């Protein structure tokens, strides 16, 4: 009997492991994947989930933070393994694949007051007029400037019409030369994630591909001009860190960085004076580039209906205002300096107006395309020869188009 007891206990345990939660009317645990483990973000998400539980006592929401570097890969693997999340954040680069594939449940009935959503913000997340994903974060890129470093180098930040790429690079170059720090860092680019270069080349009116996604834009003259400028800024002016050189603006290691406003939270306990300004204007004038995070309900999730219900609550006007503290909302009624200032105490009202509100109104989302992972990889490989001092810019960019033309044609 003593020998049988442990075996019986083990069998009982295995049986217990096999009993899942009720799919019907019983308690439900929703799993929502995010790419943020920031304690302040998690605290807010949990607070919203706790509010929801007061009216839906049977529903618990578990937030699962996955590393951003391979976020989409992890979610896809979970789907392939038959364990999809109920709700997932989706990066703008992956949006065309998720929206077009039919993996997500339409959200038209699960979003409060959809008429309030800015059309520019939802463009990427619609299919056949239906809202497939909710862009909970629509965050324009701006330039953070370490004004202490500029002062130390005897530089002043150009303003108004003088805030151009040529002048920005000149100031960055002079500051780097004078202080021994780096000039301008395109954050998260690191000579790999080229989509962040859209914050530069769109100033020349260039784009990675045509609006219909069929024609490569890398071998077009605006792109050649933009990349020639960038190449000179890196290798001749040394205004940007060279490949393989790491510099963190938020640790005080560079004069400027191009980043989204959500990064302002990294300056909460900043040891230097800073400001935030819009992207400099390029030869084609002023412009804005937006990065987006969308929210989708996986059709293959175990509790799709309950998930859609929670998304309605999570994205409601009240909660959207709370989330605006970190994630600029797509709701037009909330895109005003008064609302955003409450949520972003580190930013001045004029910064919020110039960078965020104007940026969302006029901005264009970073390059995205169906099959973007494969295209991005092909572009990255083909662009690598550009990051050498003696690169033939035109030839390299022609090679990029040769590499991605077959993929754009798919």
């Amino acid at each position: 009997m003593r020998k049988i007891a442990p075996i019986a206990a083990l069998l009982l345990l295995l049986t217990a492991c096999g009993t899942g939660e009720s799919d019907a009317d019983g308690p439900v645990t929703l799993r929502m994947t995010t790419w943020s483990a920031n304690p302040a973000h998690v605290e807010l998400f949990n607070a919203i989930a706790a509010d929801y539980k007061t009216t839906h006592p049977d529903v618990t929401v578990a937030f699962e933070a996955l590393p951003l570097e391979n976020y989409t890969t992890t979610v896809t693997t979970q789907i392939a393994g038959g364990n999809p999340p109920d709700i997932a954040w989706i990066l703008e680069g992956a949006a065309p694949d998720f929206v077009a594939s039919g993996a997500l449940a339409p959200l038209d009935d699960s979003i409060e007051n959809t008429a309030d959503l800015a059309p520019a913000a939802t463009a990427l997340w619609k299919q056949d007029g239906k809202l497939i994903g909710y862009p909970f974060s629509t965050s324009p890129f701006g330039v953070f400037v370490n004004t202490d470093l500029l002062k130390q180098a005897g530089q002043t930040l150009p303003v108004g019409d003088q805030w151009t790429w040529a002048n920005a690079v000149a100031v960055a170059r002079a500051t780097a030369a004078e202080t021994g720090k780096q000039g301008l860092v395109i954050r998260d680019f690191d000579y790999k994630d080229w989509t962040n270069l859209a914050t530069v080349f769109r100033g020349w009116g260039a784009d990675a591909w045509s609006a219909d996604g069929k024609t490569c834009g890398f071998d077009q003259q605006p792109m050649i001009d933009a990349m020639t400028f960038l190449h000179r800024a890196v290798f001749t002016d040394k205004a940007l860190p060279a490949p393989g050189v790491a510099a963190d603006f938020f640790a005080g290691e560079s004069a400027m960085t191009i980043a989204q406003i959500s990064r302002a939270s990294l300056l909460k306990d900043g040891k230097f004076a800073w400001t935030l300004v819009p992207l400099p204007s390029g030869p084609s004038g002023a412009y804005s580039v937006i990065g987006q995070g969308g929210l989708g309900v996986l059709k293959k999730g175990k509790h799709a209906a309950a998930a859609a219900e929670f998304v309605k609550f999570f994205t409601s006007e009240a909660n959207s205002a709370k989330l605006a503290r970190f994630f600029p909302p797509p709701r037009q009624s909330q895109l005003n300096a008064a609302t955003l200032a409450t949520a972003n105490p580190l930013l001045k009202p004029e910064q919020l107006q110039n960078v965020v509100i104007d940026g969302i109104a006029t901005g264009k989302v970073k390059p995205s395309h169906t099959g973007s992972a494969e295209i991005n990889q092909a572009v990255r490989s083909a662009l690598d020869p550009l990051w050498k001092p003696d690169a033939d810019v035109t030839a390299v960019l022609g090679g990029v188009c040769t590499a991605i033309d077959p993929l754009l044609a798919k």
Partner: protein
Amino acid sequence: MNYWTTRRRDLLTGYLFVTPALIGAVAFVFVPLVLVVWYSLHEWNVLADTFDFVGTENYRKLAEDPQVPGVLRATALFSAGLVVLNLGLALVLAVLLNQRLRGTTVFRVLFFSPVVVSLLAWTIVWGFLLQDNGGINAFLDLVGIDGPNWLRSEGTAMASVVVVQVFKNVGLNMVLFLAALQGVPQELYEAARTDGAGPWTVFRRITLPLISPTILLTSIITVVGSLQVFAQISVLTQGGPGTSTTVLVYYLYQQAFQFHAFGYGSTLSVVLFLIVLALTVLQWQMRKKWVFHEN
């Protein structure tokens, strides 16, 4: 006649002991192996939830894939570099640390310690050391050498990944060689020296033949391991610059998990399996020629 003879009881006991391992092998080795082959005959789009039988289409695609020759070249380069450097260095270290000198234990621990360090942590630290303004170039700068941009140049990226991997695992092979060296009968050395043999002759005619089973073991482990390198590539180079460090495992990861082509990724897995199998069988066959006192 008693059905439960001693022989039958022994047989049953043996089967009972083997059963758990057999269940594990079937569930976690053979079934996945068969499934991967089955998946390789399909076009599987996870997002669109489609799983269509396409026969040998993925194998035809593989034969026509312009990336594959470069991927196989990078894989062969990595494996050859790793095997030669790792086994060579491990053997040299083992011979040196097999001397009866003060301090050899400290060096043994020093060279073995990277084996127990987390692979990811090790690789991340090396990533910092190898960057253009990193520790390696700072050191070279001290002695007046302008170091290259190790991970950003096609000429040095693969060599850097190989060296990082060699330093990580050379200690394991070193310990195996040390154990083998200590198993060589001392009287053979004494006899050889009495006959007037020099150190090189002793090493070539006595040491090498007697540790040849260990050389076979370590070479199989190292070759198989080299074909499965992933984390180092993912952290240090992501297959670049260009596609110079895109080895087979990294390429199949890209296809299956990044590009959502699980069918084609499975096809690449089957090819990798066949390559590993062929190389292992080849090495195993070569033991008849190279391995001393092989039973």
